[in-house]
């Protein structure tokens, strides 16, 4: 079955430093989504990437989707303490048209930011 690998598992940074997490899928994806989960909370949608080579930005966050639609990255510039949480990528594969909405989550990267 489809697998989505995410690294690193943990990242500790000083406030103001940059942060990047990477995802790699075993299969070509229809889209990849990114979620943030605060401690004790539930995953909250950040963004969806659909097109090969797509790059999207949200303020200090930059998301990329690889040309082969199998890998993705999330980069945060100048981290803040409010960025603390676990960042998950989640891959969707709609081949055959029967899997809309089903997501395969990466293991997540736990980000801690030291003030």
């Amino acid at each position, binding site marked *: 079955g489809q697998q989505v690998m995410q690294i690193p598992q943990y990242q500790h940074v000083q406030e103001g430093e940059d942060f990047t997490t990477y995802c790699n899928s075993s299969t070509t994806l229809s889209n990849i989504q990114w979620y943030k989960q605060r401690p004790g909370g539930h995953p909250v*949608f950040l963004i969806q990437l659909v097109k090969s080579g797509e790059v999207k930005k949200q303020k200090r966050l930059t998301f990329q989707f690889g040309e082969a639609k199998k890998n993705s990255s999330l980069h945060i510039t100048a981290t803040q303490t409010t960025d603390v949480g676990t960042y*998950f990528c*989640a891959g969707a594969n709609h081949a055959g048209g029967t899997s*809309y*909405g*089903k*997501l395969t989550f*990466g293991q997540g990267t736990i980000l801690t930011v030291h003030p």
Partner: protein
Amino acid sequence: SAVISQKPSRDICQRGTSLTIQCQVDSQVTMMFWYRQQPGQSLTLIATANQGSEATYESGFVIDKFPISRPNLTFSTLTVSNLSPEDSSIYLCSVSFRLRANTEAFFGQGTRLTVV
């Protein structure tokens, strides 16, 4: 978007008993899913809740252990049966709208289950 009410938010259960979790959505949704998140781990899809028919289970999950109901487009329940300590996890309801091919998922607040 969707507002999802998931109940209970947490429970402590005796081994051998069952817990039923409810998921209520404020609008009709096409797709409803149940995930499990073990402590410090990622989310694993248990099943897709199909309206008016049997749920579709992922590998490693069976109906006898995780019976699911979905009587209409806004409501679903997940029962975790014959509880053991290994079932201690967070269970999450998720919905998405099949209005277009690529849509995000909305999650309930989760149910934190502890089995003692």
